């Protein structure tokens, strides 16, 4: 399969798209940060490090990300261990697997609203337990909320790693005379190390990039980089200052991205060999450790459900903490005053999802099945916007598309583009992963039977990777409905989003309305992802298990 013209033009099209929506904004961001009046200058970066408040933001961001990643990995490991390595009844496993999914698909404010209602001023916890008032705003509140929001990512990656460890290895250790706990410490845990490191980096990056939680919970005493950059731009109209802050935010994010790709990628011990001897059953670690694990899991699960219950109940009573009479007035508000946001959000998600699916599949297929110069760089670029904090992407889009050759400010296109090039990453990754499972000889068999390269893709490859494509679409749709960090910079009077409406309610202390918006958003997301799965099942009945 040498250069055929179709491939060359496909590659050119993809590079053009990446050039306009990934590389160009990135370059403009660097330009604004490092060039003043046409000359190279470090003045704007210097300002960040001389201003004590900005310096605090740098320090706080790193400290918070470290603490969140540590706690999140620990919690994620405990959940993953319970689900994959303990003999639990099926419903319990299902419950422990399902609860962490809730924060994954919820809008970013959900846990911060609930934590404010539960632990904030007038919070019910303090009344119930007669505790002395203390302020949730600052490090601890942000840490708690972010940990609960991001630990599911650690849970998912670590369960995959733990499930893939061959129990025969543990049996081998036991038969060589190690105790069960000793085996855990000397076999299971070391085999999980690359997975743990990977999860840590993932959580570190998400906490670093998180914008919504600190905006609600961090307060003035605990500035962090994403919110500082946002306030710099929206509050002080200082584009250069915002750009410099987001440049500083970008550095650790890029380091994490590189570590993940080139360090962790090579260290994984867990491989799927396709050779499966008889798998032995799960060996218990002993009563005391298992009781400990279960206690943590149940407490955290109950707390998460409790937070969701608060959001739901909070949207149905007059004023939380003061007047508990039931009412629908907040929903009336949502459907009257918020209807435009609902419609806009759904429309944007509906437009972004298919475009992202097509682009994601194209990037995944071309970078993993074709050989051409710059292939690795294309893959890197295609995943770059996802690796960068949303704030950085948002600010670079503002800089790039406000002025210059391509002006998109205020259009729907700019929001759609931000979502497509940021959130097709899952589609790309799952397409690549599923192509790696598909033996090349399948495609060769089709070619050898006389089918053209394109026909082979359509008739053989696509039907086999369609589950991966669907997973990517679902993720993109959910993110397009719930994301805020990049798009908060891109909304306009013409196009507004549900998440920014929630933020407005929060800043005006309309907690009940914010809760009602959140409930509506969660329901839409549930319905939509159910619908995507259903459509997939109808279109490809053979995959229904």
């Amino acid at each position, binding site marked *: 399969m040498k250069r055929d013209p179709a491939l060359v033009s496909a590659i050119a099209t993809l590079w053009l798209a990446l050039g306009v929506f990934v590389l160009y904004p990135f370059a403009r961001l660097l330009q604004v940060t490092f060039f003043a009046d046409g000359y190279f200058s470090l003045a704007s970066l210097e300002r960040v490090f001389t201003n004590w408040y900005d310096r605090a933001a740098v320090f706080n961001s790193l400290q918070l990300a470290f603490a969140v990643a540590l706690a999140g990995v620990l919690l994620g490991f405990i959940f993953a261990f319970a689900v994959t390595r303990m003999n639990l009844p099926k419903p319990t496993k299902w419950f422990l697997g399902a609860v962490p999914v809730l924060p994954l698909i919820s809008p970013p404010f959900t846990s911060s609203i609930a934590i404010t209602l539960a632990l904030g001023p007038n919070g019910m916890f303090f009344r119930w337990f007669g505790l002395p008032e203390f302020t949730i705003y600052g490090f601890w509140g942000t840490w708690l909320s972010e940990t609960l929001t991001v630990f599911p990512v650690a849970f998912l990656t670590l369960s995959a790693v733990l499930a893939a460890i061959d129990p025969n290895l543990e049996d081998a250790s036991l038969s060589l005379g190690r105790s069960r706990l000793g085996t855990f410490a000397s076999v299971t845990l070391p085999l999980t190390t690359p997975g743990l490191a990977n999860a840590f980096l993932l959580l570190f990056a998400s906490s670093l990039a998180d914008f919504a939680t600190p905006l609600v919970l961090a307060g003035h005493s605990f500035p962090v980089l994403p919110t500082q950059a946002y306030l710099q731009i929206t509050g002080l109209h200082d584009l250069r200052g915002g750009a410099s802050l987001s440049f500083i935010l970008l550095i650790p994010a890029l380091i994490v991205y590189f570590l993940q790709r080139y360090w962790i990628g090579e260290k994984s011990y867990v491989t799927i060999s396709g050779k499966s001897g008889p798998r032995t059953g799960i060996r218990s670690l002993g009563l005391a450790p298992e009781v400990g694990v279960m206690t943590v899991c149940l407490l955290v699960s109950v707390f998460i459900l409790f937070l969701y219950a608060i959001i739901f109940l909070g949207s149905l009573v007059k004023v939380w903490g003061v007047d508990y009479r039931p009412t629908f007035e907040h929903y009336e508000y949502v459907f009257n005053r918020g209807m435009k946001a609902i419609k806009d959000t759904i429309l944007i998600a509906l437009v972004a999802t298919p475009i992202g699916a097509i682009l994601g599949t194209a990037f995944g297929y071309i970078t993993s099945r074709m050989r051409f110069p710059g292939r690795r760089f294309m893959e890197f670029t295609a995943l770059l916007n996802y690796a960068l904090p949303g704030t950085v992407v948002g600010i670079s889009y503002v800089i790039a598309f406000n002025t210059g050759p391509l002006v998109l400010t205020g259009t729907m296109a700019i929001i759609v583009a931000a979502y497509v090039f940021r959130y097709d990453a899952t589609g790309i990754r799952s397409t690549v992963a599923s192509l790696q499972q598909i033996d090349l*000889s399948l495609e*060769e*068999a089709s070619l050898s*039977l006389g089918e053209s*390269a394109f026909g082979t893709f359509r*008739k053989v490859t696509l039907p086999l990777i369609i589950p991966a494509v669907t997973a990517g679409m679902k993720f993109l749709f959910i993110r397009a409905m719930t994301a805020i960090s990049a798009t908060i910079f891109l909304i306009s009077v013409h196009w507004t989003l549900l998440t920014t409406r929630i933020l407005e309610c929060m800043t005006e202390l309309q907690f009940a309305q914010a809760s009602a918006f959140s409930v509506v958003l969660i329901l839409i997301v549930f319905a939509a992802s159910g619908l995507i799965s259903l459509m997939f099942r109808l279109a490809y009945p053979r995959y229904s298990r």
Partner: protein
Amino acid sequence: MSASKSVSVKNLSKIFDGSGGKKVTAVNNVSLTINPGEFVTLLGPSGCGKTTILRMVAGFETPTAGDVLIGDERVNTLTPDRRDTAMVFQSYALFPHLNVFENIAYGLKIKKLKPDVIRAKVKEILGLVDLHDLETRSPNQLSGGQQQRVALARALVMEPSVLLFDEPLSNLDAKLRIHMRREIRKIQHQFGITSIYVTHDQAEAMSMSDRIIVMNKGVVEQVGTPREIYATPASQFVADFIGTANIIPSQVVAVNSERTEVSALGTSFHVKTSLSLQPGDTVKLIVRPEAITLSCDAGIPATISSSVFMGAYQDYVISSHGQNLLLVDADPANHQTFEAGEQVFLVIAPNKLHIVK
């Protein structure tokens, strides 16, 4: 059905870019001709370049130098789908999302045949490979042997000018493999399709091929019928790779038109050879295990090092003049057997000897 075509490769080379910028020569200036209707095996250890040649004939790899011809047509730049070849893969490569019928009909649909023609052809070929009633099964519901038949049927039904086999039996168990060898050979005879078969299993090559091409390190070591290759190997590599061989270093004593006299094992042998040799040349004497018999009273003195009863035959390792030799007694039940440590004499049949340089 389309007429069978010859396949030839001329001065064919393939160089891959290895890791770290190193160039790897997989196929080095190979020229071959395969006649129409012939069943030819490319045989060699892994990495010898046999699969690369096959993939260049199929169109999955482009030659670095040289030509591939199918019939009289030079096909170097033709994509696989435009070549009149069909390949049977080692992994079978059955489409997991299609059932047996759809898998076999896949190529026929591309030819735009009418549905009833397709149905009839698929039915016929399913009968031929003994797979009636399995049309609606999906590949993962089939046993390895059945999957193998479907893969064969899918290629056969296309009635290609050339059939290509890439180690198709290596995933089957030993008994099934022997059965499928016969089946493939029988069907190939019936259809008379030119076939190129890649394998590293010499028994497979011996039992199926009209001719065998033995390859090593990217070059052809020998081309010949199974008999020729076994009896008169062209090199030490071929002698060693095909069957079992005792390779004994020896020296040419005298050369005359009929036979060449070489000395080895403390005696001398008169061997027929086509090699041009001078007295004093060192050569390798090739002695197949079945060419040696044991005797109690006369011959070359030797000691039994090991003696193993294998049921149908007795396996010996004997030592004589510092050489370890393998030999096989095909009928141990009929006469005396020897145990390790016993002193014996060897008798070597002179007309079964062969020498290589």
